C-alpha cells in the first residue's frame, strides 16, 4: 500500500516510449505521459512493455464504442428495443444512459428471421456491446455475439428468474414454461464475482 504512486491531473508520469504506453486516466504530450485524474498509478504488463494507467475509484465514465455494457430492456417494438445502460464493464453508473438495439444487431446470423418479441422482453437484463455513435442522445448497441444477449429474465407467469436451456430458449423453474430469448453464453469468468 505504501509504495503506491499517487498522482494528480497534469502530473508528468514518465517518458512515452516503446515500453510505456499511455492508458486510461492518462494522456500523452510531447513524448511524455501525464495523468488526467487524481489517483493511483498502475502499470499493466503487456506483451511489449507497460500500459500506464491511473486508477480512481469514482471516475465518471461514458460508454465508448466496443465497451461491453449491462442494460435493462425497457420498450420493444418490431424494429428495435430501447434499453438503458446501467453498467459499463464492471462499473455501475450513477445515472443510466439510453441505448437502442436494432433488429439487425440482435444476432449475427439469420438476420431476416429475427422477431424482436422472441428475443427480448421488457425487464430483461442483457449484455451488449456499444457500436459507434451515429445519432445524438442514444447509443447503439449490439448483441450479435455468442457471449452477448439476455442474462437475466423473469418468466411471464411465475416472475421467477429463468434458466437458459438453449441458445434461443429459457425455462421457468417453477412452471416449466419455456420462453424464447436471445440467450447469452455467460462464461464462467463472468459468474465468479469477487
Amino acid at each position: 500500500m505504501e509504495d503506491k504512486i499517487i498522482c494528480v491531473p497534469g502530473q508528468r508520469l514518465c517518458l512515452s516510449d516503446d515500453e510505456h504506453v499511455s492508458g486510461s486516466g492518462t494522456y500523452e504530450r510531447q513524448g511524455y505521459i501525464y495523468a488526467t485524474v487524481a489517483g493511483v498509478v498502475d502499470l499493466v504488463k503487456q506483451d511489449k512493455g507497460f500500459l500506464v494507467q491511473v486508477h480512481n475509484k469514482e471516475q465518471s465514465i461514458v460508454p465508448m464504442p466496443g465497451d461491453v455494457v449491462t442494460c435493462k430492456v425497457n420498450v420493444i417494438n418490431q424494429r428495435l428495443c430501447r434499453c438503458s445502460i446501467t453498467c459499463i464493464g464492471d462499473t455501475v453508473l450513477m445515472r443510466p444512459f439510453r441505448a437502442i438495439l436494432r433488429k439487425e444487431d440482435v444476432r449475427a446470423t439469420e438476420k431476416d428471421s429475427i422477431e424482436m418479441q422472441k428475443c427480448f422482453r421488457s425487464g430483461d437484463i442483457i449484455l451488449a456491446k456499444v457500436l459507434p455513435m451515429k445519432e445524438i442522445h442514444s447509443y447503439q448497441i449490439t448483441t450479435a455475439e455468442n457471449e452477448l444477449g439476455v442474462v437475466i429474465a423473469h418468466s411471464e407467469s411465475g416472475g421467477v428468474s429463468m434458466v437458459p436451456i438453449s441458445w434461443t430458449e429459457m425455462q421457468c423453474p417453477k412452471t416449466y414454461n419455456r420462453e424464447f430469448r436471445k440467450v447469452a453464453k455467460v462464461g464462467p469468468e463472468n459468474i465468479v464475482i469477487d
Partner: protein
Amino acid sequence: MPSDSKRITGPETTIPYHYYLSDFSRKPDFKDPKVGERKNGRLPNEHRPVFLKTGVNSQAKGSAYLEYENTKVICSVFDPREIPNKNEFSPMGELYCEFKFAPFSCIKRRGHIRDAEEKELSFSLRRALEPAVCRHEFPNFQVDIYVYILDSDGSDLAAAITCASLALADASVPMYDLVTAVSVGICRHLQFVDPTNEEEQLCKKTASAESIDPQAVITLTYMSTLEQVSEFTISGTIGVCHLEDKIPALIKHCNAIYPLLQQCLIKNVKKSLGKKKYS
C-alpha cells in the same frame, strides 16, 4: 439552479444603506497609502492565506470549498449528462458553468436570477476551465459546474476558477492540468495582488477622466504543467508596458497556489486508499 420566476424577489428599488455613509461617495484617496502597506498589513505582492477543502458536498460527484479570508467560494461538479436541447453530434463534451453570488454575499443584495455580471463571470469561468478538461472523453455530454460565492471580498473570479478546478479534479473529470487563477489590482503606482473588495473598487473607479494612469484589475488563469494561459481578462485602463512585467508576476503567483491544490488532492487519494484498507 433553475431560475424561479415565481419567487418573490423583494422590491428592486431598495438601496443599501452603505451608500448613505458619509465616506462612501467620496472618491477614494490616493495620496495616503505608502508603498508596501495595505490595510491588513499585507505586502503588495502578498496573497491572502489559502484554505482548500474537497468533498464538501456529498450529493455532488465532486465539490470543493475555498477561502481567501473573507472571500468564500463553494463549487459542485456533477456527473456528465446528456446535453439538453441539442440535435447534432458533438465530438467534444461541454462544460456548463454557473457562477452565482449568494444574495447576501455583496454589499448590494443579489437577486436570485443571474444578472449580467454573473453571466459574464460564468463565461469567463467556462473559458478558463475548457482548455484544461479532456472534453473528448465525454462526447455528447455536458458536465455541470456550479460555483456559489458565499461571501465576496475581492478576487471572486480568481477564487471561483481555482475552486472549480479543484472540484473538477475531485469529481475525477479527466483534465490535462489543474488550473489556478490570481488577480492583481493596479492603481497608479500601487499594485495589489489578490485584491480585496475595497482595493478592487479603488482600482476600478475612474478617478478622473483625464488621467492616463493605469487603473485596472487583471485576472490570469494558468495551467502550470502545460505552461499555458487559459483565460486572461483586464478591466480598466492600462498601457501595454505595464503588462510585460505583470503577466510573469501573476504566473508566479499561480504557480505558488498550484502545489496547494496538488497536496489537497493527494491527501484525498490517500484518504480513499486508507478507507479501502479497512472496508
